């Protein structure tokens, strides 16, 4: 049971990170003056 909960938690966290990563492709990050290096497959070029 704990394995299932752990898997669900990790899956939700990964889904959130994927979502932020994909919508993070905007001209700038929300309020940080630092732009992490974006994965190549997410950028236009």
């Amino acid at each position, binding site marked *: 049971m704990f394995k299932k909960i752990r*898997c669900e938690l*990790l*899956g939700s*966290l*990964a889904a*959130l*990170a*994927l*979502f*932020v*990563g*994909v919508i*993070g*492709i*905007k*001209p*700038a*990050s*929300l*309020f*940080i*003056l*630092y*732009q*992490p*290096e*974006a*994965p190549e*497959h*997410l*950028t*236009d*070029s």
Partner: protein
Amino acid sequence: MVTLRNTAAEFAQYLGRELNFDQKDTETVRYGIEIILGALVKGLFIIVISYWIGIIPHVLAVLTTSSGLRLLSGGVHCSTYGRCLVLGSSMMVLTGIVSLTISPLMNKKLMLLLIMLTALTGLYFVKKYAPADNCSKPITKEVKRKQYKKLSMFFVIIWTIVITFITLAYRQSPSTYSLVLASIGGFLGQIFSLCPAGYRLIGSIDNGLGKILP
């Protein structure tokens, strides 16, 4: 060395192993975690400092205005997260302090004049320089550039309407002018970060901070 990038990468590798992600998804998760961690750390840092000084509402007014426009218009970036944390937080807290200090000198006419001048300046610079991208993720498609420019101009118009309404409707409230001034400060700071002079200034501060920060 513990950095935001290394922490995000290690966490993404762990998630990738546990959930059987391929390399592409792991890299996207790393990018997402880096953004989330960066925003959380900076948000907490700004809230703690502004709470300590007693200007949380003013700093939040700066933060929401500059963040909203920044999301659409882009702007200059620091080269490392540590320098971003120091420079970005200092700019927001200083804007909050200045807005609180000069608000007793303001009256309704002066506020409206300032809002109109700020809006016109904003429209001019957004039309000329937005979206200001960076080498980490350049916007190469012309359609997307036009879309972001239009959205940024839309933001400036909506912001002007909202801020004018607040100034007129809540002018009896003692904190209205200082909060509106904080929002104007955040707006102008973000507009400045779009233009070449902003790139030069932030670039030189970034280099200067490089002598004491990683």
